[in-house]
Structures are given as C-alpha cells and as structure tokens.
C-alpha cells in the first residue's frame, strides 16, 4: 500500500502499540470497508472480516474472564487456546451461561457465517488461484458487521434479556 493511500484510512487510535482487541477489530472492519469502497487490495483484505469478528469475540471472552483452558479440558479438546475450531463453541457456551434466556444454539446460529468468513480468509491468504472481488468483500463485510452488531447489543454479563 502506498503511503498516500494509507492516509485515507481513519486511524482512531493514537498509540497503536496499546490497541485493545476491540480496537483492532474496529480497525480490521474499517480496512475492509476502505478496500471494497475503493476496489483495492480486496484479496489482501479478504481475511479481515473473519479477524474483525475473531478479535471481538476474544476481547469479550478475555474481558469477562472466560477460562479457555478449563473450557478445552471440559470438552476434551487438545486444540490451542482460541483455536479457529473451538472459538464459536466457547463463545456460544459462555454467552448462554452468562446471559439469561440466550441458548447456546441461538448464539451458534448467529455465528454460523463466521464459518464462511473463516474459509474465505483461508483461501484468500493461502490458496493459489483464489481471489476476492470487491462485491464479495462487501458481502463478507456485511456478514461480519451483523455478528459484530449482535455482540455489541448483547446484554451485560449476568443481565436478563
């Protein structure tokens, strides 16, 4: 990316070395928006919708002191902490356990498009001959935004819906 292009990005954080995962999530989604609006770097940005959601989920789990190690033990998983395969289950289980009247399956349903974003991210980053067009990136942006909006609107931990 040329420096004059980079100046178009709206960096909201003065000290990027101290960015939280939530701020990183916001920057990821802003970058996606910039790319499809300008029809530039859409393949390079193809993985950012996934990471925008991943970072936001991890931020919530960390700030609400979710014990990922205990969770992995409880499901007999040898995956690493915050693995791509287990994070949806971890989030669904945590939300249903800490918010009244929200089921694990209902959270998993909201997160389903994350599967697609994950595959897009894998193909965009690692598979030769695979690219992301601006309209496709816009669709992925919308999918990610819907999940981010859901997370933002979740009631506080322990609150009733």
């Amino acid at each position, binding site marked *: 990316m040329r420096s004059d292009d980079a100046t178009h990005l709206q960096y909201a954080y003065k000290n990027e070395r101290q960015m939280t995962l939530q701020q990183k999530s916001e920057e990821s989604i802003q970058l996606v928006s910039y790319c499809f609006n300008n029809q530039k770097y859409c393949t390079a940005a193809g993985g950012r919708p996934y990471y925008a959601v991943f970072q936001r989920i991890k931020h919530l789990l960390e700030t609400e002191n979710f014990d990922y190690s205990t969770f992995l033990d409880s*499901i*007999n*998983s040898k*995956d690493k902490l915050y*693995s*791509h*395969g*287990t994070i*949806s*289950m971890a989030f*669904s289980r945590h939300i249903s356990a800490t918010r009244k009247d929200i089921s*694990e*399956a*209902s959270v*998993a*349903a*909201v*997160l*389903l*498009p994350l*599967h*697609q974003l*994950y*595959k*897009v991210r*894998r*193909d*965009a980053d690692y*598979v*030769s*001959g*695979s690219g*992301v067009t601006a309209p*496709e990136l816009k669709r992925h942006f919308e*999918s990610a935004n819907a999940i981010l909006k859901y997370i933002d609107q979740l009631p506080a931990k322990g609150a009733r819906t």
Partner: protein
Amino acid sequence: MIREQAIAEVRKAFQREFPKVRVNISFDKDFEETFIAIDDERLYNSEDFKKFAAQLETDLLWPHGFFNIFFVTSIDSPSSSVEESESLDQVTSTQQGDSVEQASQRITSLERQLSALYKEVVALRSRTVFLENRLAQIQTQQSTQLGNWLIDLYAGSGGFTPSAYVGSGYVHTEPRYLQFAIEQQESGSSEEKNEILPQAVGQG
C-alpha cells in the same frame, strides 16, 4: 462416533430438512478441517439454515468432539482438498420431470463448479511454471558444478581443460558423460582425452 459417522448423520439431516440442496463435503488433511458446502447462498444466509446448522453443531457435532467442521457456501472459493463430492456426471444427469426452476438451479450449480475448476486449473498452471523454473535452476546449477569438476579434473592432469565448453551450454549432466570422464581419468592418456573429450562433451 468417528468423523465419517458424524458426516453421515449430517448428510441424513440435510436430506431430511433440505432434500433439494446440493451438498459438497471436503476434508483438508493438512488442517484436519471438514467443510460442508452448499451451493445455495440465499439458503445459507437464511435464518432456517442457520438454526439448522447450529442445531447440528450443538446437538451432534460438538458433543462428540467435532469442532473443525465448518458449514460454508461454495460460491466463494474452491476446496483445496476434496474428499467426497458429487461428480459432474451426477450433477449433469438429468432427471425426468424436472421443472424449469430445477433445471435452472442445476445449470447455476454447474456454472459454479466450472468456475471453481477453472480456479484450480489456474492454480495448477501457476504451480507448473514455478516447478519448471525451479527445474531449470537445478539443471543450471548441476551443469556448473559438473563443469567445475571437469576443470579441476583435467587441470590437475595437464591434459585438456574444457573450460571453453563450460559456459557455452555444452556441458551435460547425463550419467554417461560423467562415467566417460571418470573412465578417461582412470585409464586413458592425455592425448586420448584431448582427442575424445571435446567431442564427447560437446555432443548434443
């Protein structure tokens, strides 16, 4: 429950709930991830499908320890490693009594599969070019090494030094030339090498 059993259960669930949807199941051995792809983006984004897939996750897959099974729509990208999928023959086999809508859906599905195949062909071409370039590099390196070896071999014996041939593309890496040089070094006179070696090395 092993993975194949879980996948079979998923297939049954699809046949029960969405009998018309085309399902492509692929397994990536490197990452040990399974992708269950449907060729209908509208359905994929519907609330019904989200609830259906989420129920499979929470009731079937997660309780049995299957965390790396992802539900996707296959529009965006080809699968890198296909384990089981419907062949083009199966897709193209027409069914008597199909409606126009069904035929249209099949054509759309075919177009998407062709698009995915095209992407794979592009990827394979790219890989082929890379390998050809690498092979050429290795051949050049081998030629240079053999040339240097021949220079050393004959410089020490006071005989003919084929340095003029080294940079001209006349030096070969085939075993028969290497064997020939060794035999000459072991038994032949310097005069014989002068007569024979340039011709042999320069052949072809």
